[in-house]
């Protein structure tokens, strides 16, 4: 495997009882990419995401991150390789202050990325208008601010790869645009980014390459233009066929 | 050396041991399965059942009736507890643990103050018989039989009655059950009451085998908790039965070889090892095994 590959899964499979959540998935992300993962509900996006994070164990197959076999690796060790993750439902520390939310991640920072990482973090703080000394309890922030807080939190660790699960969920179009801009900028500095998203407006704004999942398999992969023109993709989303 | 009596004795020890664990854990298991609450007043509810049985027995009531009275008195206590205290802790498991522990202190100490340090004991009904070098108690065999009846009774209750259906629905998804017309608060009270009553019944049934004192429940607490921890909450009846059997299988040989206390220590060690391998208890692992094989839920 070449050094440019950040994520690679080989024949990754997982079932839950009778449901096939992942079926022989070969997913590959190269360094510096901004990849969006889309697919109808039940397509297996969350399962694939969870397996990449280490929250779920695959039944079979392998996962490589930064060239290392992480298939059996515990979640926290994967993060220490330089990965940042956000969740579908916001998991900032709601009972703690903004300042605490932004200082807790620090001990696991990847120090070789310090300069670039620090720059990215400060950019995000600025773009999202977050004050690292703010003592306001996170629960008192608006939904949008909470989402942005969680993104800023994972940047504290100076990751080289970030995986975001529906970062624009629940946002109106202005905030969605802002989120998209920030992610695009961060990616342009070299931060490999994988985003799971439903919002096609967001995807169109942000993605270079789109992976479409359907029934646990990679259904199609290509640029935004290719995917939106793809007849079968429209079918699975709109339920024809 | 005559092997058959030894084998029978081992079998007897195993089966009565399993019955002991099952009876000790029964009430606890019902409440845990339904509400995800460990009722730390469990030992005291057993004591209440035992005290009711003892007092009524010594007043002339036949033992079997006294035991059934024990069920009802403990069930009544359970209902009151649930209505006044426990229902405020649904969703707060640790809080429920702590508050029921406070209740257990009050009940235990209260019994001490009210009834004094001892009550006259109940003689073990029935006799015993020997085979080879070993003696077997009639009463314990009856308890084994009663345990089996209880298992069947509970299976019938949960799978063949309207209460059982409503209870299972509430366990799975209380909000949904409510919107379908199930009175979930009634179900909770009934279930807690049932668990308390069963604890009282167990206490009454086990009363002839122990000294009747305010803290008599304590000796059942450790085995009951271990049984529940090993069994898990996924399917309480299956978990309790499997766990009782497994724990008896551990305790019997070790207890015979090294004495009763070593047997109990072995139980704790076994429990620690089992939860390391099966963190959600035996019932969860059995459930996983069955769904993998058949794609269906376990009955």
């Amino acid at each position, binding site marked *: 495997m070449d050094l440019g590959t950040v994520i690679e899964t080989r024949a990754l499979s997982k079932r839950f009882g009778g449901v096939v959540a992942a079926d022989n998935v070969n997913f590959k992300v190269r360094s510096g990419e901004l990849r969006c993962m889309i697919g109808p509900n039940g397509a297996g996006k969350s399962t694939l995401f969870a397996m990449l994070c280490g929250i779920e164990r695959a039944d079979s197959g392998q996962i490589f991150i930064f060239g290392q076999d992480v298939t059996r690796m515990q979640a926290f060790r994967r*993060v220490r390789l330089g990965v940042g993750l956000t969740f579908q439902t916001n998991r900032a520390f709601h009972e703690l202050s903004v300042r605490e939310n932004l200082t*807790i991640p620090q001990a696991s920072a990847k120090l070789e990325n310090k300069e670039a990482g620090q720059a990215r973090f400060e950019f995000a703080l600025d773009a999202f208008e977050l004050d690292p000394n703010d003592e306001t309890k996170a629960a008192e922030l608006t939904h949008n601010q909470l989402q942005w807080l969680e993104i800023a939190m*994972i940047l504290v660790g100076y990751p080289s790869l970030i995986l975001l699960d529906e970062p624009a969920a629940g946002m109106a179009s202005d905030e969605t645009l802002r989120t998209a801009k920030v992610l695009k900028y961060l990616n342009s500095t070299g931060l490999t980014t994988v985003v799971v998203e439903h919002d096609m407006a967001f995807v169109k704004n942000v993605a270079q390459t789109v992976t479409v999942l359907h029934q646990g398999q990679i259904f199609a992969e290509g640029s935004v233009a290719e995917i939106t023109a793809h007849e079968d993709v429209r079918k699975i989303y709109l339920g024809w066929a | 050396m005559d092997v058959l009596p030894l084998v029978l004795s081992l079998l007897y020890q195993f089966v009565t041991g399993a019955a002991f664990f099952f009876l000790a854990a029964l009430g606890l298991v019902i409440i845990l399965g339904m509400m995800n609450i460990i009722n730390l007043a469990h030992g005291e509810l057993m004591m209440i059942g035992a005290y009711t049985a003892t007092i009524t027995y010594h007043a002339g009531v036949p033992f079997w009736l006294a035991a059934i009275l024990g069920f009802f008195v403990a069930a009544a206590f359970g209902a009151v507890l649930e209505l006044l205290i426990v229902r405020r802790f649904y969703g707060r498991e640790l809080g429920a643990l702590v508050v029921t522990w406070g209740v257990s202190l009050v009940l235990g*100490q209260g019994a001490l103050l009210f009834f004094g340090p001892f009550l006259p004991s109940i003689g073990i009904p029935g006799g015993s018989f020997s085979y080879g070098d070993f003696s077997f108690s009639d009463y314990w065999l009856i308890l084994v039989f009663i345990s089996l009846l209880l298992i069947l009774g509970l299976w019938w209750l949960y799978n063949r009655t309207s209460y059982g259906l409503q209870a299972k629905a509430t366990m799975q998804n209380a909000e949904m059950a409510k919107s379908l017309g199930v009175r979930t608060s009634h179900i909770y009270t009934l279930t807690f009451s049932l668990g308390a009553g069963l604890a009282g019944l167990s206490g009454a049934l086990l009363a002839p085998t122990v000294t009747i004192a305010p803290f008599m429940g304590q000796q059942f607490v450790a085995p009951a908790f271990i049984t529940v921890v090993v069994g898990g909450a996924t399917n309480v009846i299956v978990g309790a039965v499997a766990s009782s059997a497994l724990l008896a299988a551990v305790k019997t040989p070790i207890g015979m070889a090294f004495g009763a206390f070593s047997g109990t220590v072995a139980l704790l060690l076994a429990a620690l090892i089992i939860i390391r391998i099966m*963190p959600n208890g035996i019932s969860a692992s059995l459930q996983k095994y069955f769904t993998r094989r058949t794609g269906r839920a376990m009955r």
Partner: protein
Amino acid sequence: MSTIVGLIGGGADIGRTRVFWVGFGVVVLLFLLYPTQTSAFRVSNVSFYLLNIPLGLGMALLWGYCGVLSFGHVAYFGIAGYTYGVIAGNLSGNPFGPLAGVAGGLLASALVAGIFGYFVFYARVQKWIIPILTLVLTLLLETFLGQTAGYQWRIGSVLLGGYNGMTGIPWFQLGGFVFEGYSFYYLCLFLVLACYFGLRMLLNSNFGQVVVAIREDELRTELLGYDIRARQWAVFVLSAMLAGLSGLLYVQWGNYITPSQVGLLQAALPVIWAAVGGTTSLLAVVISAFTLNWVTYTLSSQGNQYAMVIIGALLVGTMLFFPRGIVVMVAERLGRLVTRRPTPSRP
């Protein structure tokens, strides 16, 4: 120096203003002067209330800050006490005996907690299992110690003593100086303050912040790169050592220890101190532990039978009406003086 001040003053516990610290200083001064005003008997009683505080602090650390509830924490109290008795008793001529006993006691608590903690945390069990299994452990310990009567139950020359317990436990001494009476009182006071400030600093440090984060959201903390099991295990062992410290002080206070110290009734007490005080504040638990020990000790030495019923009812009442703890909720009412955060500024 400023980091130390920062660590002490941080938000992990209530009380950060100047007024608070002045009040705190006054209270400490009162404690320092107390022995000059009363009899040796009363000083001994207050020593008893003080020596239980580290156990309470251990509970607050584990339960309030880390989110792990241990019902059987008194087991470590007993293990340390008995171990000290065995080691110091066997080395009774030796001037280093008591020191070895202390080291041995703390080590024994840490070891048992370490092994137990490994099984419990690395198995990722459901939260309610930990209180149950810790309780079972302490009950088993009580049963075991209770049946150690008789001459065959001894380690070296020290008898375990069965239900009557171990007696004649040697005093702790440094050099030739024996800590008893007034000097023991000051030792307890010093250790309580050291533990309190040490923990306060620990909880204000990054280590402590991550502990709180684990309590708030384990998954999120793990996915920030932290080994949460290792950290929970470490906090568990530390809190066991605090319980052990109380046990060590206890055997100094009475020169004896019995199996009932690890039994069911004793096990309830630290849980009650922590719940009544408010597990999220070290200071609140210091106050409640001291006060409740004073209450129970006074009640039982008056022959009052109702002590445990009252305590049990207090626990139930606190859980129902003061879920965050009586001291903490009173402090919250006192408002601005003791809030943990200044009024939030709106963006």
